């Protein structure tokens, strides 16, 4: 479920005037999750795949298993740490791909104008009408389960989210006098666009990509939850939640709730950060005008 809501950005632009206390917390939490995932082999107390039926479904707070164990006795803390790797890397792939596509198409539409602009804009409208999770499921039906195909599908799906903003900012910037002056100096169109226009588009791109990262994380975790994403033995937070289903019905929900909490807190942090970045850009632009 992904929506682009201009009203939200307008609102956060006003609120961002005093940096909310929550922003450093959000950034700190994301850093923590990233480090935990990166250093999981060093930091994790157990192997994420070490099963022990005698220790199954231990509650959080147990000596040696601080976040408890799942139904096959695997350490939940270690699994959440290892799960962070795929849970963060896969949406990062989506964001990088959609960023490149969005820049290319957005700049092309803005600079070329005319029919190229019409085709690109119309194409982005059509992609936008395709719910991202649906597109991801469609490619999984084609390619079979796994993460590569959904990553590519989601990248296409989020391209309008990035590309539309890049296009509108590039049109605004392109109309400014400095662009004309570079052109008068005899620089080529491509050089001016990449060297002088692109850096000015970057802040918006980063803010928008941050939000897209959150959406992609949710979509990919949902796919894994549905059994259409990550294949065992690999695990991300989504597949951990789906494996916890029987434990939840038995009244031992921890092995599902904790990865769920990891997803929730990560997405909240990403959103806070993205809206703060978007807000400070809006502020700069209105000050500059």
């Amino acid at each position, binding site marked *: 479920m992904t929506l682009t809501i201009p009203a939200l950005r307008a609102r956060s632009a006003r609120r961002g005037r005093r940096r909310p206390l929550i922003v450093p917390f959000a950034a700190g939490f994301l850093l923590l999750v990233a480090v935990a995932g990166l250093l999981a082999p060093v930091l994790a107390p157990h192997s994420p795949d070490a099963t022990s039926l005698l220790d199954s479904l231990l509650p959080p707070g147990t000596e040696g298993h601080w976040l408890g164990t799942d139904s096959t006795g695997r350490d939940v803390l270690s699994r959440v740490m290892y799960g962070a790797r795929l849970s963060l890397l896969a949406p990062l792939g989506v964001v990088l791909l959609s960023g490149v596509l969005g820049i290319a198409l957005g700049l092309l539409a803005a600079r070329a104008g005319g029919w190229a602009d019409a085709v690109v804009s119309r194409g982005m409208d059509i992609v936008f009408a395709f719910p991202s999770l649906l597109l991801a499921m*469609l490619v999984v039906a084609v390619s079979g389960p796994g993460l590569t195909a959904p990553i590519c599908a989601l990248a296409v799906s989020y391209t309008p989210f990035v590309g539309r903003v890049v296009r509108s900012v590039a049109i605004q910037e392109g109309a400014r006098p400095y662009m004309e002056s570079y052109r008068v100096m005899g620089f080529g169109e491509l050089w001016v666009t990449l060297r002088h226009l692109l850096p000015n588009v970057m802040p918006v791109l980063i803010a928008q990509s941050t939000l897209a990262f959150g959406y992609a994380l949710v979509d990919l975790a949902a796919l894994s939850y549905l059994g259409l994403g990550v294949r065992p033995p690999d695990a991300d937070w989504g597949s951990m939640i789906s494996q916890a289903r029987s434990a939840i019905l038995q009244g031992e929900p921890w092995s599902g709730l904790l990865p769920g909490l990891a997803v929730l807190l990560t997405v909240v942090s990403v959103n806070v950060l993205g809206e703060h970045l978007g807000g400070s850009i809006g502020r700069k632009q209105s000050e500059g005008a």
Partner: protein
Amino acid sequence: MKRTRADRAGKRAFAGWIGKRVLGGILTVLLASVLIYGALRLVPGDPVLAMTGGRRLTPDQIEALRHRHGLDRGFVQGYLAWIGDALRLDFGMSTNYQTSVTSLITNRLGVSGPLILYSAVLAVVSGLAVALVSAVKGGLVNRAAGMAAAVTTATPTFVSAIGLLALFSVGLGWFPATGAGTGLADRLWHLTLPAVAMAIVAFGVLARVGNAAFAEELRREHVEVARSRGVGAAAVIRRHVVRNALAPMLTIVGLLFASLFVGTAVVETAFGLDGVGSLLVSSVSRRDFPVVQGIALIAVLLFVVVNTLVDLAMPFIDPRVALGGAGR
């Protein structure tokens, strides 16, 4: 004389604007349908083998399947045959259930339809109520509502689903954990948790956007003027704030409604409901292409139709839109 001419020109421009919107919608659905049909053609190797999942078939059966999916024809001919059938609501036979896709989907709409409506009503009522109260009260209420909205928008449906499941059906035993129930009251009872789980994200989005829209109107001069004229507080909110803020809200409600259709995939899987969403998930993993294509086409159609209707309704809710829209 002059006015009627301008009037007529305005009407023509308005009709042109409507035509453009409808044509754009049709074009979108058509291109999406090419993509949906093309997906089957992109399957690496033999699509029929992928669909049957390695089951042993006689050459005759394989040939029949190939013919039924238009795989023995070129892309264009195959597509035209498929979309022609789809326009007559015939999406072919499910390779897994051996029944017509249309009857599979309509049977399951008895669960998904009420679920989507239930959840949309919950989200719209609670979201707008919270948005209005927080915008009017301001201060601490506003900040608390903003915080709640920020958290709920970021809560993935599968996380809220397992949270609700763990708390209200396993922990407290208030609601059933699986099944859709029979009869109206029983069905509503069974669908309550799934509907709430789906409504949570939509609630957050509506509360935030609604709050922003209402707050914006509250700050406007015409509200100040109405107040100074001695119009009662309730009437100011009803006639001057809510009415003006309705147009942007409607766009969001339309988008949310369509996204709920896809959202059923997650919720129905979590709560073990036999609806269209869980049918989509099982068909994707079994590569039951006719079903996947049928549901995908319906989802895109729903999304485009709802958005186009919302666009077309806009001028009637807010006449300023028609002026701006027709001028472009």
